């Protein structure tokens, strides 16, 4: 008969007790945290869903094909995933506070990544989110347009189409790779025109330390499958006669490529004055130069103004120099009639947007007529 030597009795006992306790904890967790299926009513009953409880609302909705925008993949660090929750789900969490204004709080706005599905909910989301789809596309082409920006052209699955307004963005997902254990999504404006219904194109600039941009620039291959969710965003051209004052830098070019090509496609490129200010450091940082220069030549009401902040001798640059905000300010005073109605369209980093808005407002542009998607 085998007996456990006395030397090992205590460690074995501790091990057995630990295993039993762990099992008890696991069972208890499943019982206590088993919320079952939760009923979620959207927009006053327009859509009703039954979602597995216990998970964040953001993920639960996504499982049911309702995609709320998120720039951080649900980590509570971007504030993009706002929804109105008309049910009483308790006080605002500390993780939500940095992202909500007083008005939003009084309006029942919450971050859907921080709302756990524990009870039936009545929520409200922007109507356009019902148009958002989840696509498993194929990378048809990857092309370097500058040393740090890649143009990524995605073909949608056969039989599928995308409908969006030029200026909107999609969420592009990098799979898990290297030390990144989970897929990561980031938002990028679509640079393709809406007329191309079977493809989506993005301009993705390498951000040092950036998870998705590093993947795109080092690992992404033509022919590979890639997940894209969209379209999102309310950055679009307003239907007026006002002069469009458009400003971008780097990959901020993306929505404007879509917007300008869309206007060429539908014959409206000369319906109103369009000024496009594009800032870069040196000539090698400017791209689509030929296309934009040709648009300027071919269309009397389209004006392309590239500005270099630090042109190098080899650039032989005789165009505007300085930061794009300086050039913008100069043109708003010297070249664009002061009495002309204007709308601002901006795409770039939060810092660039703030600086451009300050210049535009200093030159008497109406802040309510300055439009942007504030993400990088």
């Amino acid at each position, binding site marked *: 008969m085998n007996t456990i030597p006395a030397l090992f009795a205590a460690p074995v006992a501790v091990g057995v007790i630990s295993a039993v306790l762990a099992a008890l904890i696991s069972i208890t967790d499943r019982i206590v945290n088993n919320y079952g299926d939760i009923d979620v009513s959207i927009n006053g009953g327009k859509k009703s869903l039954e979602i597995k409880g216990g998970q964040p609302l953001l993920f639960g909705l996504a499982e049911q094909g309702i995609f709320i925008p998120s*720039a*951080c*993949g649900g*980590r509570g*660090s*971007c*504030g*993009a995933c706002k929804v109105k929750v008309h049910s009483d789900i308790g006080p605002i969490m500390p993780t939500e506070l*940095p*992202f909500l204004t007083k008005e939003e709080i009084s309006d029942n706005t919450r971050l859907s990544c921080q709302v756990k599905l524990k009870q039936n909910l009545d929520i409200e989301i922007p109507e356009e989110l019902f148009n958002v789809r989840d696509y498993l596309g194929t990378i048809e082409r990857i092309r370097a347009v500058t040393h740090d920006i890649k143009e990524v052209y995605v073909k949608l699955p056969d039989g599928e189409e995308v409908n969006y307004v030029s200026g909107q963005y999609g969420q592009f997902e990098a799979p898990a790779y290297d*030390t*990144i*254990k*989970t897929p*990561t999504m980031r938002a990028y404006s679509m640079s393709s025109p809406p007329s191309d219904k079977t493809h989506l194109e993005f301009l993705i600039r390498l*951000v*040092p*330390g*950036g*998870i998705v941009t*590093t993947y795109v620039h080092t690992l992404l291959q033509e022919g590979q499958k890639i997940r894209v969710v969209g379209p999102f965003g309310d950055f679009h051209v307003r239907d007026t006669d006002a002069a469009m004052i458009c400003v971008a*830098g*780097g990959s*901020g070019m993306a929505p404007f490529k879509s917007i300008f090509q869309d206007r060429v496609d539908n014959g409206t490129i000369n319906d109103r004055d369009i000024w496009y200010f594009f*800032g*870069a*450091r040196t000539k090698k*940082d400017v791209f689509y130069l030929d296309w934009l220069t040709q648009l300027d030549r071919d269309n009397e009401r389209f004006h392309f103004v590239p500005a270099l*902040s*630090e042109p190098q001798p080899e650039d032989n640059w005789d165009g505007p120099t300085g*930061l*794009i*905000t300086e050039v913008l300010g100069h043109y708003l005073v010297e070249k664009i009639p002061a009495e002309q109605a204007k709308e601002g369209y901006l795409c*770039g*980093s*939060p*810092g*660039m947007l703030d*600086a451009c808005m300050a210049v535009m407002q200093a030159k008497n542009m109406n802040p309510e007529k300055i439009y942007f998607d*504030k*993400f*990088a």
Partner: protein
Amino acid sequence: MKMSPEFSKAQKNMQPGEITSAGFLGTDSRNIVEIIEADEERASALGLDFDEFVPVLRRLMEEGRKGLGEPVTVEGRWIVTAYEARGHLASPFEDGVFRKVNAKIVRTENGKPTPDAVLVSDLSLHLMAKYHFLQGRGSAFRLEPDLIQATLA
């Protein structure tokens, strides 16, 4: 090496998927106290003072932000590109929330970029200033003391 409850919690928060997808420790098998002590020792050997070089890095990052997302030459010695994304990041030590701003600082010679470059962020600078934490080996935001010295030379 045994850590205080504060550092043990921070170590947990630094794991991939907790605050950021990549985490703060890279592939380093050391705990954060070991990382900090080793880096403090190397910095001291190089004559680097955290109280001196961290403010320089922060100043360069802020100068870089003036480029509005494009590279900018600072003092004729560095090219700095500041990147910003929407939102904030929590410190793994649970002592603050920081803007998602990062900057690549490249030392130049005769106006041309050299290989001496560091990547900093609003959060990484806080961790350096307060805890002398330069992140684990393999982390994208890890700063080797030798590279700090070379870049700021």
